[in-house]
């Protein structure tokens, strides 16, 4: 399984702070496995993706395997 951690308002769109999805997942696979509203939000370039705690420069290059953790990160809040 792959753990998907959702931060900020993306957790609201998912209805949970984390999800478990079957491995493996690439970018298209991840998007198709998520609820529509969340999947659409991921196209926003301001929403970043981390794999096992490392930010991806290009989220389309995502390749996650068994035991990996994907984090979906909306823009951080201001002061």
């Amino acid at each position, binding site marked *: 399984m792959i753990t998907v951690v959702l931060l900020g*308002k993306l957790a609201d769109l998912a209805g949970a702070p984390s999800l478990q999805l079957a491995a493996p997942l690439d970018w298209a696979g991840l998007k198709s496995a998520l609820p529509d509203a969340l999947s659409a939000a991921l196209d926003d370039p301001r929403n970043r993706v981390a794999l096992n705690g490392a930010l991806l420069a290009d989220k389309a290059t995502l390749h996650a395997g068994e035991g990996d953790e994907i*984090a979906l990160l909306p823009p*951080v809040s201001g002061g």
Partner: protein
Amino acid sequence: MRDIRLLDQPFMPGMLIGPFTQANPGLGGVCTFVGEVRYDKGVEALELTHYEPLTLPGMHALADRAFERFDLMGLLMVNRVGVMRPGQPIVCVSAAALHRRDAIDAVDFCMDHLKSAAWFWKREKRAGQWTWIEPRAQDHSDLARWQG
């Protein structure tokens, strides 16, 4: 002396600042900023969420940059996560240096970056409803002060 922490429980800044000052003998100045949850109209609570693999390492990277940029003897950077009430401390940054300008500027630098670029997501509760706080234009201008 370098002390970078996330805390998930209320804290008293004085309990941190005293020992921090003691731990930097020979300093010429200490500058401390404490941020508290504002009593904005109708705000009942503020919640900060973080992402463990990014948030604390990001604060350490910020501390590294502060040490490179300013002539510091010590830096204390503590940020709360979890649910807070108005009036509770949310952040404490303290810098010790031989000269005041380095201490004052290091605190200002760290605060601008903590507020605008650190991995925290905030939401506030009004009338029982939680609302996420969006990025502000001011955050970009705060960061721009330190570029170039």
